[in-house]
């Protein structure tokens, strides 16, 4: 569909802005189109690009449904009353409570867990705790994704701080002392680990690691025993949508068994509690911190600034 004509003016077409992973988004689009016969125009990008595009289009919005990779951003949209409530969504009740809005202003249809991804050729004894990475044997060998570019990394940092309180900063200060490098978004942080330039990523997203591992790359992931943060990936209908009906059908489809299976085959955690994945660790297998999402949303900006200044 290279010669896409202005989708806004095309009555039946649903416009979706979706964050990755790309393969999954494509599959969901195809599945939805096949099932409902509604045509979807999909813009793919990182959470940041999507938000930026929405901001540029603010005076004349085009988008109907957004799918983000970061919960706090979505919470902010909901707070600004930009999303349409759809409490009647099918399977709404089966979603993980903490991650979705009870009024149906957004739905976390999937999630990724953060862990330590390491290169199996270079690491013989994998770390078991976050603090391990501050040890001398890891000096200059660890990447951490940039929280200003990676929503999941931000979720981890704010989540960790929300659980540990202000003393949580000492971990990141030790990391800094030990030569941990800020390195772009998730994939950019992971890539040097695959090629062996670095040995591990702290707060790496698990689905990427699972996928690389399945491809045969020398990587694996561990979830530190003291717990980690899960980063949910929410979807929502935008209030200005001219196609609310079709948008609701899209949400219903996201939460359907079919789409949830697609989620698991992309190595992501399913958003529904009643679906399990057989190619990765399930939610129940992952030790998690008790995080405060509200606090995290409120402190994300300040945390990002503090964190990036620390690492500059």
């Amino acid at each position, binding site marked *: *569909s*290279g*010669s*896409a*004509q*202005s*989708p*806004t*003016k095309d009555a039946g077409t649903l*416009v*979706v802005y979706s964050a*990755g*992973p*790309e*393969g999954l988004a494509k599959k969901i689009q195809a599945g939805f189109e096949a099932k409902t016969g509604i045509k979807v*125009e*999909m*813009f*793919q990008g*990182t*959470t*940041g*690009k999507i*938000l*930026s595009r*929405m*901001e*540029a*289009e603010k*005076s*004349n919005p085009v988008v109907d449904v957004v799918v983000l990779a970061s919960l706090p951003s979505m919470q*902010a949209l909901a707070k600004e009353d930009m999303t349409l409530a759809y409490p009647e969504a099918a399977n709404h009740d089966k979603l993980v409570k903490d991650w979705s809005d009870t009024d149906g202003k957004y739905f976390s249809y999937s999630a990724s867990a953060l862990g330590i991804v390491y*290169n199996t*050729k270079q690491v013989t004894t994998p770390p078991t705790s976050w603090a391990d990475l501050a040890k001398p044997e890891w000096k200059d060998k660890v990447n951490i994704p*940039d929280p*200003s*570019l990676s*929503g999941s990394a931000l979720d981890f940092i704010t989540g960790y701080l929300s659980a540990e309180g202000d003393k949580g900063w000492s971990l990141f200060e030790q990391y800094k002392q030990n030569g941990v490098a*800020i*390195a*772009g978004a998730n*994939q*950019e942080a*992971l*890539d*040097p680990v695959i*090629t*062996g*330039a*670095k040995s591990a990523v702290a707060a790496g997203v698990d689905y*990427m690691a699972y*996928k*690389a591992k399945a491809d*045969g*790359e*020398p990587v694996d992931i561990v979830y530190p025993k003291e717990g980690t943060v899960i980063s949910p990936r929410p979807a929502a209908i935008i209030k200005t949508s001219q196609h609310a009906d079709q948008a609701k059908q899209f949400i219903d489809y996201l939460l359907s068994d079919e789409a949830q299976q697609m989620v698991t085959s992309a190595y992501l955690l399913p958003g529904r509690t009643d679906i399990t994945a057989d190619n990765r660790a399930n939610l129940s297998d992952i030790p998690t911190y008790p995080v405060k999402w509200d606090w995290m949303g409120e402190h*994300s900006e300040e945390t*990002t600034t503090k964190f990036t200044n620390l*690492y*500059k």
Partner: protein
Amino acid sequence: MKTKTNPTLFSYQKISTAAAFLLLAVLILFPLLMIFRTAIEQNGVIDLMAPLRLLGQSDLTSVMFSTLWLGCCVIIATTVLALPLAWMMAKTAIGRQRWLDVVFLIPFMTPPYIGSMGWMLFMQKNGYMEQILPASAKITPAFFSFGGMVMIMSLHLFPFLYLILRNTLEQIGGSTEEAASVHGASFGYRFRRIILPLLLSSYAMGALLIFVKTIAEFGTPATFGRKIGFYVMTSEIHKYISSWPIDFGKATSLASLLLTACLLMWYIQSILSSRYSYRLTGGKGVRSKKYSLRGWSGLICWLYIGILLITSIGIPYFSVITASLLRLRGTGLAVGNFTLQHYSDLLSWGSESMEALVNSFTLSLVASTIAVLIGTFLALKVGQGKRLSQKWIDLFSLMPNTVPGIVIVVGLILFWNSPWMPIPLYNSYGMVVLTYIILFLPYTLQYVKANNGQIDPILLQAGAISGGRPLYVFRRILLPLLIPGMIAGWTMTFTIANRELVASLLILPPSMQTSATYIFAQFEQGAVSMGMAMAVVSVGITTILLLILQTLPAYRKQQLS
């Protein structure tokens, strides 16, 4: 050509000038004004000092200075790379090797972030360099520094300066230099007292463009810069534009500071140019002095060119091609780890990647063609640039070159997606074409303008005397004589449009990809090999196209003139 001769011609002049201003206003001026408004307006309150206040507020001052410092260093480094090359190509027999011109365009054709990736893959710990030469592990870390960044950016940008310098050197007739040598000046003295001063005005122009391109560049700072912790204005602008919370006000404030810096440079440049520009071509043809390259000097020249080719193309493309061929990137350079699978996936008919490739080529084809047409129209309007209206047209059409691409794109979205905009261009194929046209208009304009300046008006007068109506003279004489400039402009536009990333990322309609965004998406998704394969295919096709184009007679004529 005199306006008063013919009443219809007269009104044509007026109408076309108005049309040119309207075109520039809609294409360039209004979108830029939208940006400025966003920069100084916060919640309906106009605050002219907002950009400066922002600069004082945070540690942005140091970022601004390191950006400018980077710009200056890249100017110096590109000069060191381009000047000797330009001299060799203009003044020695090596210049007959025309294919080198296309080859030296390759760094420029390569998306900057691909070039940086290539270098990083090569130099990083356990990178290709260490895999080939384990002993090099001691020196490679030194590469990840400010110096390395300057080097990567210079190796990407130097072809631009090279082309400008070579043209001028070729125009500096041999006899000026020979006169100096007969009158007792040794090579060094000649170079210092004669060649350098005559080169100054075009050098100023080239240096300006390099400076602007450096401080507006995003690809290298986003990859290499981030890795070494070097932050520049574009990365800050990007931060405000693409991470939560989105703040266009701050982004555009920073952009307007960049724009101010660029305009300042432009002003200095235009003073230098007008002060130090000389008519170099006399009535008789120029006979360029060619130095013979026997013995050592020839060896040194070819060595220099060889090293330049290796560093600007060899190393990055070694990495890019290797990465595109690796089965498992974690295994590295090892027998049995090579595969053509990525290419066959990439080029399989009907695949997403093919679609992106076709999109890229059709988009750049359409955009560069329209850009050339508009550029030609504007170049003819600018003419000799003597009248005030002509000067304004010239300045406005150059503006897209002085503003970071991302800023223009935001302006374009703000403008074309306004609720009051009656033309539903936004979010369509047309919008992408329009964006490319605006971004690359300055290139076509420059080339056609230069060409037009070489056409003696007497040729058109001869046409009128011979009974040709103005339109007929335009069609039969002016247009054919402009073709070489138009082709050169088209080539340049096509090449850069084909690899454009920053604008495409934001402006492409949903469900549409170009080869550049495809590559970027592959990197984001972890399919680095696919992305690299796409880069190789895309640059390869462009290079072949240019080589074919170079054999065309019209292009050759342009090279002669």
